[in-house]
């Protein structure tokens, strides 16, 4: 389990391996790092991998909406993968799923 998120660039995609828990405590620094990749490394699309994430609250919704607004300016997309039931539940309640590409596993 990673306590801290990890970043990898593949082409014009940024892949973010999200941490075990996402809340207000770490959300801001995750958003800032992703924005640096978008600005400095010409990343167009962001893929969030939640395979290690056990918990996320509205702060995580804020990360996703904020990044969507950034990449949507240049037709970039947000991809979400490996979400557990809790994350899927808050995502569907928030109504933002329609703005993102949800990749189904296996």
């Amino acid at each position, binding site marked *: 389990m990673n306590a801290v998120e990890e970043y990898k660039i593949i082409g014009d995609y940024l892949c973010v391996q999200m941490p075990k828990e996402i*809340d207000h405590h770490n959300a801001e620094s995750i958003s800032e790092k992703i924005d640096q990749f978008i600005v400095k490394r010409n990343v167009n699309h962001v893929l969030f991998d939640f395979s290690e994430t056990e918990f996320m609250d*509205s702060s995580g*919704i804020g*990360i996703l*909406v904020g990044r969507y607004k950034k990449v949507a300016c240049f037709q970039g997309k947000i991809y979400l993968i490996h979400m557990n*039931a809790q994350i899927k539940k*808050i995502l569907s309640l*928030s109504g*933002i799923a329609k703005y993102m590409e949800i990749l189904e596993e296996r």
Partner: protein
Amino acid sequence: MKNQMHLEFSADSANESFARVTVAAFMMNLNPTVEELSDVKTAVSEAVTNAIIHGYEGKEGRISIRCKLEERTIDLEIEDKGKGISDIPKAMEPMFTTKPDLERSGMGFAFMEAFMDELEVTSTVNEGTTVHMKKRIGVLTPQDDFL
């Protein structure tokens, strides 16, 4: 069965995870399902985060959580002595936020409402806010009706 606890801690974002994990551990006696546990954790996280971001606006303060377990119900009161809410119905509308600059999306109360069975907010401007929530834990089997 009636079991109670009272938790008081500093309004520090590092305590958000401490608060939800502690409440989750305390409610284990009720034999919650995985989903019930994560529902309660999410609701606690939302209320505590609101106290830190909106109640105290990042300044120092104390947050208190009173938790009661009764039969099959968890009863939670999360209180801050921060700036308070002037228009509670407005604040509780989904997507309403006073801090869009901080990437808040106004979903906190909507999640508390969806994940708990009861939600009641009381607040006085410049005195603070209390979020009172209840949730029944454990699925009722048909047999239980006769107990």
